[in-house]
């Protein structure tokens, strides 16, 4: 039940937040990943 409410609430938020005719592509490079090199075990 709680999960269902969260899903519905998130859905409502997304629909409201979605811009009309959003032409910008999703930026895959806006946050590059953390890939450190760890020292030897």
């Amino acid at each position: 039940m709680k999960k269902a409410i969260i899903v519905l609430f998130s859905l409502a938020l997304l629909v409201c937040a979605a811009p009309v005719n959003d032409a910008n592509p999703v930026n895959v490079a806006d946050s590059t990943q953390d890939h450190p090199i760890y020292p030897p075990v």
Partner: protein
Amino acid sequence: MEFGALIKFYRTQRGMTQTELAKGICSVPHLSKIENNSKEANEATVSLLLSRLHINFKEIEEKEELIHNLLQQLGEKINFYLKDKADEVYQKLQEIEDIIPFSTYIHLYELYKYRYLLFRGLLDEAELQKDLLFKQKKNFSQHEEYLFSYFNAVCLIMKGHYKAADEILEALYNDPSNERSNADFFYHRAFVKGSLEQSGHAIHFGKVALQLFMNEHNFFRILHTLMMLGINYTHSNIYEEAEDSFRHLIRNAELLNEEKLLPQIYHNMGFLQNKRNKPKDALDYYEKSLALQPIKNQHYLVTLYSIGEIQYSLNEVAKAKESFQVVSSLAKDLGIKKYRLLADFYLFHIISPDKAFKYLEAKVIPHLEGTKEHKNDLTRFYKMLSDFFRQQGSYLEAVNYLNKII
């Protein structure tokens, strides 16, 4: 020393019968009892039997001491991360391997052999050794049991199973009967916590390890611990401390001409600059790191992948494409699926974002979810897919991926 078993070993090795060996020294039933350790033989009898087998009683006793010293040395060389010296000691132990089963150090020898194989990165052989030790487990002393559990945790770390390793180390840490002031132990605790993205804990244990390594002037491990602290400070957004750690490391590694460690430090400095939102500085460090890596191994792959990501974020598409193509083919050669999938995702994205997101959903996400060790990557890709579906108007899918983040 188990003299009975030793006498039997050399008698059969020399093809002698019990009658031949016992003649003029003791009765055959008496020898039989000695060999089976059911009777404690006096020193004179043992000495006579050994001398008939051309073995010196005193020599044997000295060997027992030698085994003890060599095992101690092996543990020390591993703790101090001295690979060549550890090889030398291990070689010496192998030369007297025949006699070790008759000494009181039989289990300790097998345990340190296990640790040595892990230390040298020989995982397949280490796994076989682990199976062998598992069968002997019920005869272990408390100290030997501790070592077995601890080395199993090291084995799990090397295989990337951090959660299971963490559980073992936690249990050992909480058991008051175990020794706890071991610097290596805290180093491995910090290692696991860092890999599990629990940077606060990693910093805590890392600091304890650093102090202990400093007390014993364990130079290589001090450098390794500083590197780990730098990474975890970066993860925790404690940038000044991170920068201090890395600068200190660069200074020392340059001073010591540490060719292996230096490119790794430059890489992690790049990782820090990237986190600080300084992509150009990050790129400089990554490129410096790559230039110092002659062997195209896993580290080379990670550095080149990081370069590709930054080039892509700086809109240097042609350069990024070139980097990802090399990453994809190298990852295939090295059998590292994660980086092949990630590089291919970017290569698809350069041609067609739609195709890339389908690939992300069909290939990359299932692989990352399957290994259960890539929470950071997954969170980022869930967010990306959620944005993608939202823009496509597929809100249910968008919510589905958002919920995975929660």
